């Protein structure tokens, strides 16, 4: 969802260990939907980036080496400065895997880059 004229675009933290997925998602979110993005390639860096940038929302891959997405959510939600940031999980999940109740929603991989921003806005309830 493009920002209103004069308003600063929302900032999204995009976390995925796949360089290509991260690049295409960031490009689509910025160029198609007008968001600003910062990125991280692992859970530990995601926590650092979230504390540093205080993004408006986080898009978080579930399966990553080291600290996975579910562990990352636990840490984000346990710290007061990041607990209120809404999170959407991005995953090629297997049936039966359920996201934790603390996340706003799930976007399935593969995803359509052109529709990613709209899907994020819908899940986070952003209308402007």
């Amino acid at each position: 969802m493009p920002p209103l004229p004069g308003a600063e675009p929302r900032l999204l933290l995009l976390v995925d260990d796949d360089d290509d997925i991260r690049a295409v998602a960031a490009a689509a979110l910025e160029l198609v939907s007008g968001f600003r993005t910062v990125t991280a390639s692992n859970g530990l860096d995601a926590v650092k980036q979230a504390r540093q940038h205080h993004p408006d929302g986080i898009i978080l891959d579930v399966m990553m080496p080291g600290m996975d997405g579910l562990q990352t959510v636990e840490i984000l939600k346990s710290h007061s400065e990041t607990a209120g940031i809404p999170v959407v999980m991005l995953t090629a999940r297997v049936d039966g895997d359920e996201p934790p109740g603390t996340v706003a929603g799930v976007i399935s991989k593969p995803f359509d880059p052109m529709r990613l921003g709209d899907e994020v806005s819908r899940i986070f309830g952003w209308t402007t």
Partner: protein
Amino acid sequence: MSASDLLDAYQALARRAWDTNRARSVELSAVLAEWQQSGTLADDQRERARVVAHSLRGSAGTFGHAEAAESAGELQELLSAEGAPSIDVVASLVGRIETALEQDPVLEL
């Protein structure tokens, strides 16, 4: 940036992802070959193949190789399920992934 520029950027990323996914396919073939040779699928090899299949599923589908993504998804689910997977089924899925990745990606924006 125009729509044409965005498509160019997407196509460049897709070419890079294609290379990455063919390397992942080779890795799956290596696990299969070791399994066929030893007669046993070790737990660490099974986990390695499951993670590779997961990555392939997400990347191939996003970058225009839907059939490879579908087979990788089936492989991921098979390797995530309880019990020993069938080597014949795994070999079939790995073969389908290889074949699908020989085709040009279908890129639409």
